[in-house]
């Protein structure tokens, strides 16, 4: 079977490629003040929230869409998008899982995450997001016992306005770049997490995002606050249905770690990458930023990026508190016509701050992958250190792998080390594996998993298994 045919075969198997036909409430098409007011109104938001949005929108009008990135995409007409759509049956929020629309539940079953089951079996509290509104939040009881707040953003705005007001937009201000500002103006929903002082969150918190309803940009907003001495591990996983036209996803994720707190944020992203000709697929333009505000705080990003037509994101850490630590572990896999421009920014402001970057990029088919990272050591960040390693693996000569690290060291007490390699899977390794009875595809899977091991290890158990499979699946059809 030639590669092309294989690709088509695989495509049919894309098990997340389906849509549920729930009638949607939509805001009128286009982007203007009325649409923002509509969103704010339908969510019954207080005035300060609406002001926050309008302020962002004022700013947005002045901004130009950036174009320095490597993957270019057709111009997006921001007036031709719907900025709000919600499942109709969601008008009155359900009190328990039983109240959910059976169709919604079915969707999750197809995704392989039956809410009740997963919650019970894995001990994970799931805050599932269907389109732009949170559907259900489980395991509330257990979390409430510890004083942990884990709810949708809309709920947080209603119930915990003080916290939201205090922290929202503090890491990603409304005056940030184009897509972040757009998000600030029109964000619909997302997750909100608050871990009180000294609490170690007893379970992994998880959200499954799901993009539904065509022509709807999805604007998620997530805010995680870890108060002094607390710990939380947060998982985010994504799948999306098949679509022909491109869909924009511009989420904002803000993390804040106070003194001695630790946040671990893991992502597995497997959105629809488009077909084998590069048609369709999701644009994933996400802004993720963590602020190590307090002393001895730590933020760690782990990501496995296999989906989306275009991935364009740089989960960053601002190391403001003394002795704070930032980590970034990433696997990005691109196949067919996928494009990725991803990496991280580590901004060292405090003394004795440390950061570590491990990035593994694999490109196959006609895809293009860029690691772009910034390590900036401020003149006040005495005795700081950074270690960066970014490796790329290429399969075939139709794809590209690029490394663009920016290194700025303004402090003579600090050390910065950067390493990068680019290579391919060697014939010997393949031969060895095949000799032991693996077929070429299995052999590649094994070698690639070995290549990614350093990052996979960082993922929580439940994710690691899924991610490992995903790595194999994403590269199917790229060998031979």
């Amino acid at each position, binding site marked *: 079977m030639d590669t092309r045919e294989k690709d088509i075969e695989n495509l049919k198997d894309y098990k997340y490629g389906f849509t549920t036909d729930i009638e949607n409430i939509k805001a009128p098409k286009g982007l203007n003040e009325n649409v923002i007011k509509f969103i704010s109104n339908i969510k019954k938001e207080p005035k300060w929230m609406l002001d926050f949005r309008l302020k962002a929108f004022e700013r947005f009008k002045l901004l130009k869409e950036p174009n320095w990135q490597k993957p270019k995409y057709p111009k997006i007409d921001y007036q031709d998008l719907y900025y709000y759509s919600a499942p109709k049956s969601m008008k009155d929020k359900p009190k328990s899982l039983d109240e959910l629309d059976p169709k919604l539940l079915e969707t999750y079953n197809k995704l392989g995450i039956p809410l009740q089951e997963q919650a019970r079996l894995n001990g994970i509290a799931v805050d599932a997001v269907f389109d732009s509104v949170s559907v259900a939040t489980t395991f509330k009881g257990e979390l409430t016992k510890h004083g942990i707040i884990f709810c949708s953003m809309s709920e947080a705005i209603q119930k915990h306005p003080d916290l939201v007001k205090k922290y929202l937009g503090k890491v990603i201000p409304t005056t940030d770049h184009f897509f972040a500002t757009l998000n600030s103006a029109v964000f619909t929903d997302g997750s909100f997490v608050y871990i009180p002082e000294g609490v170690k969150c007893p379970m992994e918190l998880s959200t499954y995002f799901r993009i539904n309803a065509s022509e709807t940009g999805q604007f998620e907003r997530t805010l995680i606050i870890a108060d002094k001495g607390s710990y939380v591990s947060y998982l985010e996983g994504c799948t999306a249905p098949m679509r022909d036209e491109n869909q924009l996803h511009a989420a904002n994720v803000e993390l804040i770690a106070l003194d001695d707190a630790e946040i671990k944020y893991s992502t597995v992203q497997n959105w629809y990458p488009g077909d084998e000709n590069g048609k369709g697929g999701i644009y994933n333009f996400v802004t993720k930023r963590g602020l190590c505000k307090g002393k001895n705080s730590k933020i760690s990003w782990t990501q496995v990026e296999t989906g989306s037509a275009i991935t364009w994101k740089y989960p960053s850490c601002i190391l403001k508190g003394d002795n704070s630590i930032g980590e970034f572990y990433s696997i990005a896999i691109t196949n067919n016509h996928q494009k990725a421009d991803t990496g991280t920014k580590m901004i060292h402001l405090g003394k004795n701050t440390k950061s570590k970057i491990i990035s593994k990029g694999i490109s196959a088919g006609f895809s293009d992958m860029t690691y772009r990272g910034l390590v900036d050591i401020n003149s006040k960040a005495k005795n700081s250190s950074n270690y960066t390693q970014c490796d790329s693996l290429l399969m075939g000569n139709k794809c590209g792998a690029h490394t663009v690290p920016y*290194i700025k060291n303004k*402090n003579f007490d600090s050390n910065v080390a950067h*390493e990068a390699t680019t290579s391919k899977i060697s014939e010997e390794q393949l031969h060895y594996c095949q000799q032991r009875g693996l077929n070429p595809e299995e052999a590649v899977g094994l070698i690639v998993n070995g290549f990614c091991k350093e990052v996979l290890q960082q993922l929580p158990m439940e994710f690691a298994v899924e991610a490992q499979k995903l790595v194999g699946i994403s590269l199917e059809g790229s060998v031979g």
Partner: protein
Amino acid sequence: MKEQLKIDFNKIQEVSNFSNRDIEIKKSYLNKFIENGFPNRKQENWKFLDINQIISNNISDLSFYNDYSIENKIDPSIFIDDLEHNKIIFINGRVEKIDFSYEDKKQIEIIEDSYTIDKSENNNSLIDLNIALSNKHFKILIKKDYSLKKPLIIYHLTNEKMKSKNINLRLDFELEQNSSLKLIDFFSDDSEKNFMNIFYNFNLDRDAILKNYKIDKSLNKNLKYSFNNINQKQNSISETFVFSAGSDYFKNEINCNLKGEYSSAFINGIFSLDDNKQHEIRTTINHLVENTKSYQLIKSVLGKNTKSAYQGRIYVDSKAQKTDGYQLSKAILLDETSEFNAKPELEIYADDVKCSHGSASGSLDDNSIFYLMSRGLNYKQAKGLLINGFLLDVIEKITDGEIKDLLKKMIGLKK
């Protein structure tokens, strides 16, 4: 500035004897420059050190006109006497002397060439400026199978008559099959607050070898920009070494196009900076065919208020399988006001390649200092020894023994 440029441009055309066609071409480049102006930090290549700002901070009323009719006196004391060599002497941008006395005259052709078209497409406005304003330029052709017996030293001298001037220089080198050239660019200035813009274009035919050493050692307050464009055919080798220390600002750009199989490019550089100096090396190596190789090693030692930047780019075309590319940049920061920036970039479209880069920066290792001091050295000596060892690594990469020794002496690594 625009008005000044136009006036100076016309003045230059009046005193030179360019053909109408050339003037037209120059005019188009001038307009291109006027449109874009000096590069600034908005452009990716100039992100770290913004020449537009640096020029406006350092030079007031920059003038673009130089009177090339006045002959300048050559001061022979400046010549490097440890080494027998051929000379080209530029004083204030004017060619004062071309001397190939050690060579077989039949094997070297010096073509006075005003032919201005720049074939390499660029969006570098300094090159536009260079083409628009440079005087007649020379092309040095080295014939098939001829290796220069002695190195060629190009002296870039300025005297105190120069102030707030822009000097544009251009030289072309054509190395025919199996020829070789050792070229030293030696900078020495008695002037201040000028902006020098130097553009070299090298064409290396099969099996040709080019070794270019750029030495900017003597302290001065001029700003310099140098661009080397090197086209390489099969089996050719280019070696570029940059010693970047003396000028207030110096940016060396090296652009290598490896167009023939088994061609290779080596770039080594040292920044040794003190007192408000800002230097940069930017390299682009284009691996365009199979089996090509490149190697880069850049080291910085940075003192008070200094800034160095290294931007290295390795581009590997999808045809260029079996490429071997390597970049390494290291920096020692000696003062809390020093700053090191690096952007080692890989852009790869072929799968069977070996490309890697590394970058490290930090202060002197306390343990090593302690070790040396416990052996009886004082702090200053220990520091000096470590820095010398750090830099010697790069000097040792120089493949020509004589020139290596010369450089060691200049830097004080050898008596």
